[in-house]
């Protein structure tokens, strides 16, 4: 028994006991505790195992940098691994489990790695496990992988919700310690919009942990009152439990708010976490400083912690870390800790310091051992004693203790100032890396800028806030505070490590990187700080080296005979602390991963029993099963046959539709298609082929001339957005002098294809105008009245199916009514609704191409459209580059039809084409099938294929090869039109 709860003091509420469990064992803490402080109060010193050697570990910090006390919380979908016990607010029912140990935290087999450690030095795996070659994957790697990682995550989907939000402010203050509070109190006096963010559950930062006074109030009380004042200010928004995790261009910050991570019962109406994107005109970094551990033999035993953390446990959480506490400190923090311990009646057995003189303002009872270091420690699962070495004499003595507070100085928390690529600068005077020069409205203040005294921090925060606001035109005077004089906070020379340590001297506690590993890295040539990091993994654990990086730099500097300045830091990267996928995903999850586009004929199709398929963002009706039909093929065959024999109606609303106006509209369209459009008469539609500037086909569709200066273009569903953007580029960037205006009307119109020999008869019953072949010939395009002028629609005589066909567009809201009307009018004419599957069959039977063929690598010539390409037009997109030799080469893949030799056999798209008897090799590859289907009209499978010299090989027998399914059948190349090659039905 060593750590215990003090009977009074602290910011916990002793009237609110809270039950929780650790590794299944019921324990109790108080409201205001963290999981860490509650564990410590219960004398749970052993809280985790390290990554590599499975060393027993205890709490090292009281904050975000904690490398040891990582636990798993929750069950199933709420399983949360690697959670820092120091950041978890204690709440009822909390269950935490330790990690990376088996079978238990107390008895962990993995600890054997510690004994093998001479063989497991940095990078040992790069040097071995290579023989026999097959053993790596079968034997060695599985073992290594098993040992990898810390926590065990769950595959079960998360039941909770997340969201994202934007926030905008004039001044963002990151951190609500004295510096941040002073900044906020100053800014609150202005009219500027201020956001104050702190990752803690209580605002105040170090004020909550220290025994100083501000304005004659105890620091914590001052903080509480400041919050009351700030909460009342209308221009200040306070985000607590919110960590700013990344700083991005333009002063945009990512911040993670833990909305419901501290509650026992989750409110379903609220997210558990919210990810903020904060856009700030100015930002003040008031994130404070991190205390550095000391590197000495056995510096990782449970019971040892940072001196500042000890003060936090004492002062904020009312927990004594032990009964006989020793201090090992370079600089003032240790002395203050000793004072606070003694003030709480805790015995301080010794203060060990490498400094030569003792701290004069310390008046306590502890034995002061100056000019000395700790060479080694004893105890396994808890600290038992120290070996103290006197620097002058080299003599050693041992000392019993059950806790040790250490401090190697402070490192400003500069991460966010470095995320945009700036490097921190080493300062000998501060013995620390200071933030880079301020940029783009981000400036560090207080502890984060290496400002040591409380008074100076308060002043710095206020001054910088006033300056930042001044830059924005909000003048305000700085808030003033009175403080006690703190002790002269000078930094002694840095003390990087104890030479000749007894036992491992850890630098990176989580990844178990110790002094010797860094030495080995230097000896082997991995001496650049970035190489040393990668070779030893120092700083790469979940704490990202918050405690270890600067020490590693100091050690590398000594090993290479340079200074930390020369060694420099590794790159600071988002995230400051890790962020869940859930938070970064927000509400864009499940069905809302991408929005769903709903066709105006969706409900109509649904009503008629359609099955749907995702096509881009749309759900498209793909077939309409009828009772008694056993599989989709049966329905599709029926639909396709019915269209050819009678009539069908199909939703084509998803096509892109672009309205084009302007006196140069015709010229414009003539330039964006490779075929001619200037002479398209009003009232007519034409198929257009659109190339990219590099000569390959981009998209196709029909464009109708509705008036002299008014066109209506359709695009494929997939490229609707892209084509509009492309056209806008052409009109705004390439030819701004042309008078053209473009706008998407895709959503204004419900569009349906009515196809089949009876199509005209059916439509004639609803269309007011004469649509006889004479009055409305193939490719006619006109506005029409419907049902006695009730509404106006647009009718186009175009056909994808090869049948006598029309496309009718009506204002979207009328789509369902019109489609229903057509269905019932068509009943006597045998009409059927048909979906995209039948549509596909019908178009393959006619050899019509889609993006299965137009895949960005084909030219008009490849598809047999060579003659469409205008030879006369002086200019159109793609004209020149299409002439390149490679695009005109005769051995390009070109479109042909394909069918099985034996009609009973079938093949699939993606099969390749080989010569008969040719071995299946790349050299013999002639091409591949792009589209295939069962043709109910012909009674066998048909396809389209891209084949080298394809059109010249028509009539030849080939092999259709699908090695993925070990299939290989004989086929014949044929014309790509399987039905009505003369197009008679079309013109009927």
């Amino acid at each position: 028994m060593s750590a215990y709860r003090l009977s009074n003091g602290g910011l916990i509420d002793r009237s609110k006991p809270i039950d929780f469990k650790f590794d299944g064992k019921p324990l109790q803490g108080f409201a205001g505790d963290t999981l860490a402080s509650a564990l410590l109060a219960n004398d749970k010193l052993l809280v985790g195992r390290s990554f590599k050697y499975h060393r027993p570990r205890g709490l090292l910090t009281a904050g975000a940098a904690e490398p040891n006390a990582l636990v798993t919380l929750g069950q199933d979908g709420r399983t949360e691994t690697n959670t820092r016990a120091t950041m978890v607010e204690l709440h009822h029912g909390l269950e935490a489990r330790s990690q990376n140990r088996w079978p238990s935290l107390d008895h962990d087999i993995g600890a054997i790695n510690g004994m093998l450690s001479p063989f497991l030095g940095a990078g040992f795996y790069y040097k071995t496990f290579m023989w026999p070659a097959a053993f790596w994957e079968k034997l060695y790697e599985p073992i290594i992988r098993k040992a990898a990682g810390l926590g065990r995550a769950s595959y079960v989907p998360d039941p909770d919700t997340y969201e994202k939000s934007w926030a905008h402010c004039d001044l963002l203050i990151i951190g609500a310690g004295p510096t941040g509070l002073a900044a906020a109190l100053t800014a609150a006096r202005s009219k500027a919009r201020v956001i104050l963010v702190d990752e803690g559950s209580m605002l105040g930062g170090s004020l909550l942990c220290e025994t100083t006074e501000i304005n004659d109030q105890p620091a914590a009380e001052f903080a509480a009152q400041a919050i009351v004042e700030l909460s009342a200010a209308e221009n200040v928004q306070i985000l607590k439990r919110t960590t700013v995790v990344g700083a991005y261009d333009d002063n945009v910050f990512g911040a993670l708010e833990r909305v419901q991570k501290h509650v026992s019962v989750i409110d379903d109406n609220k997210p558990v976490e919210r990810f903020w994107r904060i856009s700030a005109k100015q930002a003040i970094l008031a994130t404070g400083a991190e205390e550095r551990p000391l590197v000495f033999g056995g510096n990782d035993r449970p019971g040892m912690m940072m001196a500042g953390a000890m003060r936090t446990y004492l002062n904020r959480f009312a927990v004594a870390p032990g009964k006989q506490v020793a201090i090992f400190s370079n600089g003032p923090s240790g002395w203050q800790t000793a004072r606070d311990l003694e003030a709480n009646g805790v015995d301080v057995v010794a203060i060990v310091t490498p400094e030569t003189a003792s701290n004069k303002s310390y008046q306590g009872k502890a034995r002061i051992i100056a000019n000395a270091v700790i060479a080694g420690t004893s105890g396994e699962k808890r600290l038992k004693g120290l070996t103290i070495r006197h620097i002058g004499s080299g003599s050693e003595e041992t000392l019993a203790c059950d806790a040790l507070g250490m401090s190697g100085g402070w490192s400003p928390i500069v991460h966010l100032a470095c995320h945009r690529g700036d490097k921190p600068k080493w300062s000998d005077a501060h013995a620390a890396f200071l933030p880079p020069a301020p940029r783009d409205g981000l400036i560090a203040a207080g502890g984060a800028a290496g400002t040591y005294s409380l008074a100076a921090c308060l002043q710095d925060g206020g001054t910088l806030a006033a300056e930042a606001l001044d830059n924005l035109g909000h003048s305000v005077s700085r808030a003033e505070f009175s403080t006690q004089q703190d002790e002269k906070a000078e930094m002694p020379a840095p003390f990087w490590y104890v030479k000749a340590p007894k036992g491992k001297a850890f630098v990176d506690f989580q990844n178990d990187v110790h002094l010797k590993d860094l030495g080995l890295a230097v000896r082997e040539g991995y001496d650049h700080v970035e190489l040393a990091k990668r070779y030893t993994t120092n700083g790469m654990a979940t704490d990202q080296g918050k405690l270890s990086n600067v020490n590693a730099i100091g050690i590398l500097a000594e090993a290479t005979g340079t200074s930390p300045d020369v060694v420099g830091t590794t790159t600071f990267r988002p995230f400051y602390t890790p962020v869940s996928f859930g938070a970064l995903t927000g509400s864009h999850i499940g069905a809302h991963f991408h929005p769903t586009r709903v066709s105006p004929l969706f409900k109509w199709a649904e009503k008629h029993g359609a099955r749907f398929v995702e096509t881009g963002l749309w759900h498209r009706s793909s077939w309409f099963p009828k009772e008694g039909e056993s599989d989709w093929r049966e329905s599709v065959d029926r639909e396709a046959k019915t269209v050819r024999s009678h009539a069908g109606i199909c939703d084509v609303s998803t096509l892109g539709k672009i309205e084009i106006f302007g006196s140069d509209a015709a010229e414009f369209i003539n330039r964006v298609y490779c075929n001619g459009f200037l002479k398209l008469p009003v009232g007519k539609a034409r198929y257009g082929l659109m190339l990219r500037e590099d000569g390959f086909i981009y998209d196709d569709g029909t464009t109708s001339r509705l008036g002299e200066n008014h066109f209506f273009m359709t695009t494929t569903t997939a490229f609707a957005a892209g084509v509009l953007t492309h056209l806008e580029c052409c009109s705004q960037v390439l030819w701004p002098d042309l008078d053209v205006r473009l706008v998407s009307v895709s959503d204004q119109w419900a569009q349906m294809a009515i196809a089949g020999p009876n199509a005209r008869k059916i439509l004639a019953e609803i269309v007011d105008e004469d649509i006889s072949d004479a009055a409305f010939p193939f490719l006619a395009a006109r506005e029409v009245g419907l049902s006695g002028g009730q509404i106006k629609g647009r009718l186009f005589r175009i056909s994808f199916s090869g049948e006598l066909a029309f496309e009718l567009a009506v204002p979207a809201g009328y789509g369902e009514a019109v489609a229903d009307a057509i269905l019932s009018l068509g009943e006597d004419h045998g009409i059927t609704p048909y979906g995209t599957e039948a549509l596909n069959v019908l178009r393959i039977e006619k050899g019509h191409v889609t993006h299965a063929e137009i895949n960005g690598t084909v030219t008009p010539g490849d598809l047999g459209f060579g003659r469409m390409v205008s030879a006369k037009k002086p200019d159109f997109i793609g004209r020149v580059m299409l002439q390149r030799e490679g695009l005109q080469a005769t051995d390009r893949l070109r479109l042909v039809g394909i069918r099985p030799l034996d009609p009973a056999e079938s093949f699939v798209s993606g099969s390749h084409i080989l010569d008969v008897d040719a071995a299946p090799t790349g050299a013999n590859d002639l091409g591949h099938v792009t589209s295939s289907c069962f043709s109910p009209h012909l009674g066998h499978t048909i396809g389209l294929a891209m084949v080298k010299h394809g059109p010249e090989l028509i009539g030849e027998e080939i092999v259709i090869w699908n090695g993925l399914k070990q299939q290989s059948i004989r086929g014949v190349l044929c014309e790509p039109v399987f039905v009505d090659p003369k197009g008679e039905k079309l013109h009927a």
Partner: protein
Amino acid sequence: MASLITCPHCGVRPKEEFTIRGDASVTRPSPEADGEVWHAYVHLRDNPRGLHKEYWHHTSGCRRWLVVTRDTVSHDVIDVSDAGALA
């Protein structure tokens, strides 16, 4: 810069409202220009370290094509103009 673009028509907007097209310093050659010139236009890029002009389309805004002058190292945006207005 890369997080926010000040559209001359819409004001400050986040990157995801835009579609980026690439180099805006090249000019479409005359239709009579030879293949070499067209090849350079379609393919060859300065790709500068430093100031770079780039086409950004305000897809989820005014749908105008903009020319963004940006530093490719610092990501600072120097200028945003309407592409049509520049032509």
